[in-house]
């Protein structure tokens, strides 16, 4: 059935900008404080209070716009978006309507070896709302609690064109956008803390059809996995509905992570009429080109350039380059390790394999890991010179991850040194062959299993510390002389 339909996806991403204070007042933006301890009359919507724009928020928006190849507006203004909700104390959100700060742009994603350019429609500045906490059992409680610490945290809403055609592409877009925001240092992009959020507009249409199908908007996508799963579910739901002759209703749906379904959020109350009008309390912005040039000159290396550097200099694949440039901390770890141990493929494999696995298992970020570049480089060196085997390296790495001890110490403590000395291995090989004359006879009669038996015995006798490659070669030589 999915062969008959094409999925069309556009994403709206909200990134909290990395300012110390809120967008229109001087309250702190720090996450995790006690409820309503980072509030003032401005962000609590008291009557008569006047907002004053945080210049750093504008800087962050310009930076992001440049990183996304957008046009930075020479003139832009703020507007009021009116709606009632308890987490919105003024009953309007200060946002930008017809004159956003960033217009147009694009970013490129690579999925399964295919490059797709995803257009950026616009990016605009706005203020975040507060947080609603449901009290007790959500189905029975008649009350909610409101915490306004988040109210007024600066947001940049980045709207894409409907240019994605699969859940995988949507995920790749989100991951690439996250890495750009991290490299530009404009947001800390912690999805679990809500500093990077995403709504997906999803529709389906018969293959070859030019007109877009009716879309639904999915909210509550708090992880890359949720984004991917929700889109897959929603596309399938729409296709099945169309197959059954139903009509898709344009509506907002919420993703239920536990049940793995999207559910309609329709209500009689819902009226999408925000009655935008210019915000009279904020004068407009004139962004002269000198300002834009100053920001441009201050831009650090972006993930696209860094990834190209990795591919050109070290011959890494696009896939590896994307993974290493998923955050500046990741790239820094790679660069620092490589400075000490110049095998890019090996460094990349360990970072993407064991390190990523252990970080995910422990819910940690690479910058918090006890394994430092110097330790990984040393371990790789010990592996290369045969001191430890690949299998031992795995043990050493896990131990380094837990304790942060250097590999030499771990090797000593765990007695992991590999025996790569022919003079100590040969007598042992002789002994085992002499003790098993029957197996030797089997080997001479062409029984392959016999060779494996000898290897097993040698590894057992050395408690697995013998260099397997060396044992293999020595044993072959020795048996050929029989």
């Amino acid at each position, binding site marked *: 059935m999915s062969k008959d339909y094409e999925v069309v996806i556009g994403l709206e991403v909200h990134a909290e900008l990395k300012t110390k204070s809120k967008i229109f007042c*001087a309250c702190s933006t720090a996450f995790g404080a006690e409820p309503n301890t980072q509030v003032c009359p401005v962000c609590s919507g008291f009557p008569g209070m006047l907002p004053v724009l945080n210049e750093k928020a504008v800087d962050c928006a310009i930076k992001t716009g440049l990183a996304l190849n957008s046009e930075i507006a020479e003139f832009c203004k703020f507007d009021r978006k009116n709606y009632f909700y*308890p987490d919105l104390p003024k009953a309007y959100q200060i946002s930008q309507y017809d004159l956003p700060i960033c217009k147009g742009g694009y970013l490129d994603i690579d999925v399964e070896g295919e490059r797709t350019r995803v257009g950026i429609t616009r990016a605009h500045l706005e203020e975040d709302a507060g947080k609603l906490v*449901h009290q007790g059992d959500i189905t029975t409680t008649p009350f909610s609690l409101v915490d306004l610490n988040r109210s007024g945290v600066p947001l940049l809403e980045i709207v894409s064109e409907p240019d994605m055609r699969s859940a995988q592409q949507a995920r790749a877009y989100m991951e690439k956008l996250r890495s750009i925001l991290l490299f530009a240092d404009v947001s800390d992009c912690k999805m679990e803390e809500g500093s990077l959020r995403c709504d997906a507009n999803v529709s389906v249409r018969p293959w070859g059809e030019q007109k877009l199908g009716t879309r639904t908007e999915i909210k509550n996508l708090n992880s890359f996995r949720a984004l991917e799963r929700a889109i897959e579910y929603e596309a399938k739901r729409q296709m099945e509905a169309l197959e059954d002759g139903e009509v898709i209703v344009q509506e907002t749906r919420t993703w239920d992570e536990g049940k793995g379904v999207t559910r309609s959020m329709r209500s009689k109350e819902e009226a999408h*009429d925000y009655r935008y009008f*210019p915000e009279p309390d904020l004068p407009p912005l004139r962004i002269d080109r000198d300002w834009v040039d100053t920001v441009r000159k201050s831009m650090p290396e972006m993930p696209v350039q860094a990834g190209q550097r990795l591919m050109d200099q070290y011959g890494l694949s696009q896939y590896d380059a994307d993974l290493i440039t998923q955050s500046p901390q990741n790239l820094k770890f790679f660069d620092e390790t490589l400075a000490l141990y110049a095998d890019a493929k090996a460094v990349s494999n360990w970072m993407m394999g064991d390190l990523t696995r252990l970080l995910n298992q422990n819910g940690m970020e690479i910058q918090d890991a006890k394994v430092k570049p110097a330790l990984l480089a040393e371990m790789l060196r010990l592996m290369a010179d045969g001191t430890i085997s690949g299998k031992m390296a795995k043990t050493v790495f896990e131990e380094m991850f837990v304790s942060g001890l250097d590999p030499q110490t771990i090797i000593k403590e765990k007695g992991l040194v590999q025996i790569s000395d022919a003079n100590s291995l040969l007598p042992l090989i002789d002994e085992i062959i002499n003790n098993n004359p029957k197996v030797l006879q089997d080997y001479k009669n062409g029984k392959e299993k016999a060779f494996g038996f000898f290897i097993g015995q040698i590894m057992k006798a050395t408690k697995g510390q013998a260099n397997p490659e060396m044992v293999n070669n020595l044993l072959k030589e020795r048996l050929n002389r029989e």
Partner: protein
Amino acid sequence: MALTIKEVEYVAQLARLQLNEDEKQIFAEQLSSILEYVEKLNELPTDGVEPLAHILPVYNVFRADEIRPGTPREEILANAPLVEEGQYKVPKIM
């Protein structure tokens, strides 16, 4: 420009106002007369006039990104009709 009762009901719903039939009639008339008055502006030639974004010729008013202590919680919550656990207590929406 006369507003219909339906339009009055729509605006009332957006403003979360509950109007009885008499009130709907009154507001339809009052709102219509306001709109008629504003409509006079349409008599002016505005071709080539940029929409006004702000009434003052002022641009780029900023504050530096610096934190100042907010208002103590007891003070900020003092006017709230219901408070619990340091938060505003409101009727559940969803």
